[in-house]
């Protein structure tokens, strides 16, 4: 990549970042609106008759729930971005009174561990499977794998998780049923690994099903092209053609897929985490929605949204870097 393209890429990145600003504001307005325009609020759960009306009014005042919506939004939005230096930037959790930022930061390692491992497993499995299928297109192996992929793709995550739990943890007692560690075994690595197996398998089955289909299609597309025929006709060994010529080009679209998957590394897989009570961000988000813990929900949704925007940007930039044919 020459100097000129480097500069082009930089200006493209800056342009895309500027374009992302209204979208970030948009997702903030929408998530804030959904949370605050709905009937009922956090204070309602104290209206049991045991708490006096004066106390309830006091609570409403303390939490600023009596201020006009735009004021509440602006306060929340400007405060939100001070999170690197301000541990109260995302407010307090309504349910346990802790700063939301600390609550969320505490969940990130678990999510990173789960999503990172499953992404690694997915890449390691899906790429060779896809290549094999493309090279041996229409063979029995290809047909069987395609069928399995279709079923894997159609399988709802939580159902797959339940089945795995039932088979491997209830019946065979091979792996723990839920959580990330056994009580009293804090930081014990084999223990964490054992807890990791089932959730990672759940995620990997579904991701491998999607990715290998993608890889197969991408590989077939490349193998139809002229330069592959040229490579073959100059007498190159089949394995060389696949490894040196086809694979490198077939991997380019996978880079995009990777960029689009990265957001989930942080925002997590809400359903899988919930099935296995994995103490990650997705599980935190789901429980917070159910408990109407607005500040936590808002933070989780915002992180998810911003991650998607960054992931898209990253995918486009990575595409430009690996594929010299693309100019911006």
């Amino acid at each position, binding site marked *: 990549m020459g100097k000129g393209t480097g500069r082009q890429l930089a200006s493209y990145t800056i342009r895309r970042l500027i374009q992302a600003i209204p979208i970030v504001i948009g997702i903030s307005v929408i998530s804030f609106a*959904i949370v605050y325009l709905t009937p009922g609020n956090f204070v309602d759960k104290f209206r049991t008759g045991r708490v006096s009306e004066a106390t309830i009014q006091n609570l409403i005042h303390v939490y600023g729930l009596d201020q006009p919506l735009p004021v509440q939004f602006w306060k929340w939005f400007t405060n939100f971005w001070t999170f690197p230096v301000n541990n109260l930037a995302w407010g307090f959790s309504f349910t346990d009174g802790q700063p939301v930022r600390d609550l969320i930061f505490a969940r990130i390692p678990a999510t990173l561990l789960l999503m990172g491992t499953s992404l690694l497993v997915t890449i390691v499995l899906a790429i060779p499977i896809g290549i094999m299928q493309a090279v041996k297109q229409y063979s029995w192996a290809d047909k069987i794998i395609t069928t399995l992929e*279709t079923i894997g*793709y*159609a399988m*709802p995550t939580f*159902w797959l998780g339940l089945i795995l739990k039932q088979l491997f943890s209830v*019946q065979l007692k091979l792996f723990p049923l839920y959580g990330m560690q056994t009580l009293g075994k804090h930081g014990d690595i084999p223990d964490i690994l054992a807890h990791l197996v089932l959730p990672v398998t759940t995620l990997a089955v579904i991701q491998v099903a999607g990715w290998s289909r993608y890889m197969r299609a991408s590989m077939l597309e490349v193998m139809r092209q002229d330069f592959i025929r040229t490579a073959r006709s100059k007498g190159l060994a089949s394995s060389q053609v696949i490894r040196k010529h086809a694979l490198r080009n077939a991997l380019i679209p996978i880079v995009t897929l990777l960029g689009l998957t990265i957001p989930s590394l942080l925002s997590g897989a809400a359903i899988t985490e*919930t099935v296995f009570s994995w103490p990650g961000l997705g599980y935190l988000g789901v429980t917070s*929605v*159910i408990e109407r813990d607005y500040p936590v929900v808002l933070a989780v949704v915002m992180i998810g949204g911003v991650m998607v925007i960054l992931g898209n940007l990253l995918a486009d930039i990575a595409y430009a870097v690996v594929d010299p044919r693309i100019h911006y």
Partner: protein
Amino acid sequence: MTTEGIRLGQPGISLPVGTPTGEVDEVDLVPVQTYWQLVRRRFLQNRLAVIAFVLMIVLVVASIAFPILGGNLWFTTSLTHGPTDPVSLAAPLGYDNDGINIFFRLMRGLQTSLSIGFFAVLIIAGIGTAVGSVAGYAGGRIDNLLMRLVDIVLSLPGLFLVLMFVAFLGSGSALVIIFAIGLTGWTTAARLVRAEFLRLRESDFVQAAKALGASDSRIVIRHMIPSALAPVVVASTLGIADAVVTEAALSFLGLGLLPPEASLGNMLTHAQDYFYRQPLWIYYPGIMLILVVLAASFLGDGLRDALDPRQRIEA
């Protein structure tokens, strides 16, 4: 007209079996089949799509017929029946802990799930067509604005949006679930319709309608929307699978329909409580879910290929 035919390179021209193909002149004389004849033939040639179509019909018919045949059986509890009862013709899947006939409950659940999927997809198609056609026809600033809105909705984590809608507007209501899925899922349909409209706007028949002095609303509603519907039909068919799974996920997370109402999702949740003693119970609703998803996906793929073989929609 025979459905078998020899395909020539160009779509739209085909020869009935037995037509001598040696003479080139004959080709031009063969009448071109109508669009719908071609669509039907292409669809019938796709074995997977036909199987999916039949499966979908079986599922829909079963979900309507069995709840009618069974009457109240899907929620009638009984003290004389239980999980230990032998399987019989009257209760092919046995009875659950409350003495409810599992088979009839499953069929009722299928009915609920399919209806939620169907109505949610109707909303998706409606909003998608409205937004997409306005954006594609108006172009310029309006198009830009609407497409940014699509970007925003697409950036938000989808499941959380649905969860928030349902949790905050009242869980346990089928109507809220339908609207939650519909109001968050229209973006793909909108993009597809917009793309079709951008293409159609420049086409001869739209230009002709314009030249004849037709009003904008007439051009859009009478001329363009019917031509742009094919991708919406495909996306909607594929969308049924998503909607049914989303409903099940909501129930699983405790925000879906609550018993005594039955849905595939809440049956799965219920089965989870009997994880140890009744391991088979999670398979019944799960397999139903997979069947719905497979039928809808292959039907959607088949329709896409039949309606327009050149167009591959990413959905």
